[in-house]
């Protein structure tokens, strides 16, 4: 029942988004991600840089403006925020 199987980074992002519950989710992501990455666990998914995220969004688009990103069902706006954060950071840090 663990949620820490592969793709835990997305789980952290998702947590961040849900905590933000605001339009400025991108900024909240950055803040939260910095905080999370200092913790020993859970780990982040390595290798999902901006290009990978954008490719995922582009290739796995679902109807009704939702996409499936690393398994998570999210709005396109939310997914694009994730891509923006990844661009800001250059790549996703691996805290594990």
């Amino acid at each position, binding site marked *: *029942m*663990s*949620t820490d199987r592969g*793709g835990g980074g*997305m*789980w952290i992002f*998702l*947590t961040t*988004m*849900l*905590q933000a*519950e605001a339009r400025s989710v991108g900024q909240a992501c950055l803040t939260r991600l910095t905080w999370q990455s200092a913790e020993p666990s859970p780990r982040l998914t390595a290798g999902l840089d901006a290009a990978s995220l954008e490719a995922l969004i582009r290739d796995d688009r*679902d109807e*009704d403006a*939702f996409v*499936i990103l*690393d*398994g*998570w*069902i*999210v*709005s396109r706006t*939310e997914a694009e925020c994730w891509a923006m954060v990844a661009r800001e950071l250059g790549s996703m840090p691996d805290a594990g």
Partner: protein
Amino acid sequence: MLVDARKIEQSTVSTHLCIIGAGAAGITIARQFNHSPVDVLLLESGGFEPDLATQDLYRGRAFGHFRSGEHIIGTAFPGGLTDRMDYPQASRSRYFGGSLNVWGGYCRPLDAIDFEAREWVPNSGWPISAASLAAFYSRAAAELHIAAFQEQELEREPEPRRELALPGSPPSFATKMFYFSPATPFGSWRRNELVRSPNIRIVLGGNCTELLVDETGRRLREIQVRCLDGRSFLVRAAVFILAAGGIETPRLLLASNRGCPRGVGNDRDLVGRYFMEHPHLPVGEYLLWADPLDLTLYTQLHNPVLGHATSGVLCSSADFQRERQTLNYSVELVLVPGTVAAMAAARAARTDAFSQSYIRAAHEFDAAFPQPGRDRVARAHGQLFARTEQAPDPESRVKLGTERDALGVPRIELHWRMGALDHRSIYESTLELGRVLCRCHRGRVRLRLQREQAEEVEFGAHHIGTTRMSDDPGRGVVDADCRVHGIDNLYVAGSSVFPTAGWANPTLTILALALRLADRLKARQPWTAGGG
């Protein structure tokens, strides 16, 4: 009255009503005749306790979408379930009380849409409506010592058990409740009452091995009964009810092929076809941005108002099923440890019975799954576990194999199939739940499924559809009264008569149909023993 089949001296035993199988349906029907002028013989293969030699009569071969279901089977059956080939004997229980001896108490009526002929579900549609079964559902609930289901069922849940309100117009998901019967193990609950009955004979250790029709082929004259010690005799009755379960009932009909070459009631080659299970499978993860207390409704807890345990599940609505042409679907919100502890802590100040039972359950849960540090995640998350409907498919079926059991009856081959509609429904329903949670900012879903993925799934040990009900003999084995088409005095009771399965566990519907059949037979006059 209790009789050991191995001590019966006569070559032929006569009765008014012979019920083959003392499981949920058979016991329920027998009780309706208690203290009546009707002489009832309730024939059971096993005794009051399980034994390996009797259980072995269930052994067979199974093919299809089986996956080990340890959480369901566990230690309830000798040997557990380590291979799909074990399914025929490990998913059933052959002694007084039947498979309800290892039942979890899950009760829920089928939905109205389950009875409808849906154009996107081939072979769907019952010859009776949900409304015509409503009164029998209420009586079945009383039989199982639970409250009757009502339209506004969520209003009978105490605070803080609140529905996870999901938006939509019309909504695509809603919460429905399971009621948990305390009448388990079922056989023990009913044993003494039937043993003391003046007109019901419980015959233990007697296995029906063949149904014998008369020279017209339209009437069952008698049945052959054999014991594992070699003893055998015939039972003659005016009326026979086959209540042996969704695998054994078609097995007996097919194996009775001396007077009817294709088997009794099988002129149209329908017996054994349309076998359905309730696919059980983890479909993803959920994360809810909500007070964890909102999920107490979705945890199995004692409801002091109703006097028994209840638990909520999220279900796809009839509107969604019609619009997306999917099958019926439900999903449990399985919590991860830590969340439960946080919920318990929040309720610790409460001393009422509900809170106390909840806190006890929480501690037991966390003790079983210790995960230090998890409780710092102050939100609800866990696994989505689906329990779904599958479409009736004539190639999903019970057949006779070449091997025979200790009594000479051919063992079964079970071919369980899941089709494209089954898989698409599971995928699209889970996807919709994710969309809804995302739209209302209540949470997120992570899919575990691939589109159209044909994966192995777990099961509910529910055997459904193999003698389906239809007014048309070309489309069903039994008619709307559960009488076998073409055989005047043979009826079937149990989930094998369901034309479709819905997602809900079948027990409550089995009892409702059993009560309905008993009412019809009680009105029958006159009763004469041995085929009069």
